[in-house]
């Protein structure tokens, strides 16, 4: 239970960090006419002009310039930069008055000013591939090394789908609990599909949250010493775990070190229950006893860190 509470707290923190990182500021033009420049540079040309008292929203600041989007005289959305000396910061996002001219989706801007702003966190990423390593901590069977790969397919700037393959392995301990696996090595390989909700911020940081389901490919090998001790008595023992469906949710953070390359970390809580079976057979008489394991809990946290490449 403590583990679940802790997990929930971590998840909420990730959401909070995402929102804070993405918060915009509200600007109010304090001069009669202010030039919206094409580049964060006073020597660059003006792409539009805004009047005294106009309220604007900016989600990014480059040097002394606020990046804004405005509607030009032709009714088109244009992007540019206002020098901080011509505006007053009048508030945050929640205080945006209705008449604020909001920034629009970044795609047209990207087309208008390709590769001008670094880093590239807010850009829409269509396809990505990643590798990660970390460790897992299960509620029933201890912790162990985890590693895997993922494939990301962006649907929008903020929404994407991810398919990942993961493998983690733990060493199970002796237990008096007949519902658990015996001492041995447990390997779990979830193939998971996740819905990703990204919260890109302008500093190259993209927090995200994820949730989804998967199919868990499981295997279990009884401890060799345990098997050996029974074999010495003329008794064969074996124990298996079946594959299972499961669910997961989590959060992560990508940091773009290059426009197409991000490093990141994530945490994921997996919930899965598998079935299994065990047998015990006398080598001499062939007498056999067996049983089923109907509720093998594979719940656990998976922590990972890795590298992603976006196409």
């Amino acid at each position, binding site marked *: 239970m403590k583990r679940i509470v802790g997990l929930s707290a971590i998840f909420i923190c990730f959401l909070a960090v995402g929102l804070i990182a993405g918060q915009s500021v509200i600007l109010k033009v304090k001069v009669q006419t202010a030039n919206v420049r094409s580049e964060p540079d006073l020597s660059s040309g003006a792409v539009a002009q805004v009047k005294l008292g106009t309220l604007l929203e900016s989600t990014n600041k480059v040097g002394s310039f606020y990046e804004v989007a405005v509607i030009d005289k032709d009714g088109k959305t244009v992007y540019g930069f206002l020098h901080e000396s011509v505006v007053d910061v009048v508030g945050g996002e929640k205080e945006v008055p209705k008449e604020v001219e909001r920034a629009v989706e970044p795609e047209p801007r990207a087309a208008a000013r390709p590769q001008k702003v670094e880093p590239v966190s807010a850009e829409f990423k269509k396809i990505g591939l990643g590798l990660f390593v970390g460790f897992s901590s299960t509620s029933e069977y201890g912790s162990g090394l985890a590693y895997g790969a993922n494939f990301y397919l962006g649907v929008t700037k903020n929404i994407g789908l991810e398919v990942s393959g993961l493998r983690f392995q733990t060493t199970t301990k002796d237990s008096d609990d007949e519902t658990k696996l015996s001492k041995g090595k447990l390997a779990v390989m979830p193939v998971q599909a996740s819905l990703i909700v990204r919260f890109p911020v302008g500093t190259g940081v993209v927090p995200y949250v994820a949730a989804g389901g998967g199919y868990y490919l499981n295997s279990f090998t009884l401890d060799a010493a345990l098997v050996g001790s029974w074999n010495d008595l*003329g008794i064969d023992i074996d124990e298996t775990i079946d594959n299972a469906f499961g669910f997961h949710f989590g959060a992560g953070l990508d940091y773009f070190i290059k426009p197409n390359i991000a490093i990141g970390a994530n945490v994921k809580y997996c919930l899965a229950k598998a079935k299994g079976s065990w047998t*015990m057979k006398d080598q001499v*008489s062939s007498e056999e006893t067996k*049983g089923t394991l109907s509720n093998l809990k594979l719940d656990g946290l998976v922590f990972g860190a890795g590298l992603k490449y976006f196409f």
Partner: protein
Amino acid sequence: MNKTIRRYGWLAFTGLIAVTLLLPVKARVQENPQGMVFTPPPPSLPNNLNPKLDFALQRMTEIYAAEGIEKVRGYAVQHKIDVKDDCIRVIAETDSSNLGNSGIQARVSIVSAKIEALGGRVEMSYGNLIQHLAHPGIVQAIARLPEVKFLRLPLKAFPTTLTSEGVAKTGADTWQGVAAYRTTEKVKVCILDAGFQGYTGLLGTELPSSVTVRSFRADGDIEASQVHGAACAEIVHDMAPDADLILVNFSTDVEHHLAVDWIISEGAKVISYSMGWWNAGDGKGTGPICDDVKKAYDAGIIWCSSSGNDAENHWEGTFSDPDDDGWMNFPGSIEYLLVYGSECYAYMNWDDWGTYNGSNYSGSNNDYNLYLYYYSGGAWHLIDSSSNSQNGNDWPTESVGTYASGPIYWALCVYKHSATRNCKLEIFTAGSNYIYDYPVPSGSLDIPADSPYAVAVGATDCITDALHYYSSRGPTHDGRVKPDFTAPSGVTTQTYGYRDFYGTSASAPHMAGAFGLILGKTSFSTSQVRAILERRGLDLGSDGKDNLYGIGRLKLTKPD
């Protein structure tokens, strides 16, 4: 007859020379019985035998009427009969024919009230049996109650003891070192015995730190001045140190039935039974004691029963009387069975039990009687006799017995009182004695080792694996091979000391402990564990299962 005696004298002399050379050392140091040949005189039967009364009870009522209570006390001591406050512990068998369970209960209640009204003290009941204490002066009156079918002394079981190296010998130590797989159940092993004197001093060392105890004796005494059960419990604990032990004792057949019902309700998985009965069944696995074994078996309990220590205390043969004087001719013209020892308690039955209907036998109409003589001062003296009436519905059993101040010769004589055929007789001698001439080891199983539902266990030496001379052998009276196993005997216990627990009494708890050990380590069923042990037993004697070693000596490890 004088010719016969003279001829037998020469034969005996020649035979004894040969026997002296062939007999084991123990026998050769005994007094030569030459010259003790005799022919028992014609028997005299007591008058007015009450067919509803056990012969010993009849005798006690006669002694009481003629000589008073003091003589009755002496008779009771001589015959090991329970007497309390000058009252005899007896069993009233109520007539339960054509009655259902509720009818039997009602009848037992009525008869119990009548016994109380006559001055008896009812202790307990089971089925149609009422165990009570009765003064010799009212025994006849109780027997005359119309609802009473028969009044008898309680059947008695005897410890089959004659202390554990058996743990290593059987390979149990290797199992003890392995953690249980897929089971957390604490196996309950019950030691059902006569008494557990000194068990409290063994707790935490030779026994678990706590055990469950329950006495079904009328006096509730779990110790009962007998250490036998404590020693058996020691061995079970040595073999299966993680098992929960239940110590239960009894004294009579009624107490035995109640004890078994309770043991089943307690969830025991194994019963270690180092007790044996004689004259309690036909030797074919039927009878009230064997019924208890089956009841336990049906409840999933494995019953490990000592086979008995009677290979040299058993004789059986068909009644033969070529000189037509009514006395059984044992080999040749010898009309007695020669027994040597400081006491002689003999139990005779014959193959005329009739059919067993699940609660009783239809009974015998062939009447044989048993007489006991002792040799002193150059002559034989009658010391006891048993002349139960067998007139169609009675058990074919007789028993005599007494003791002496030291080892002497005893003669058991069998007289055909009234019989339509020559029945096959069987005699067990209990106590410190052995049959000098001519023991028949074959078929010497105690009851309930003859039960098909019991695992009968014989005794082999804990070091050499040699069959101990006393270990009772099969087959059963219906031809089944027994015992099922042999297990170590002559082992060390705190109770008896260094390598001083001999008898199949020591063997049965090794077997029970083996079951307790494997059941506690695995999820195999009791029948599976039996099958596993049967395949692993160390085959001794002739190939395969035989009537001396069963399938072989208990061995838990896989074959080499």
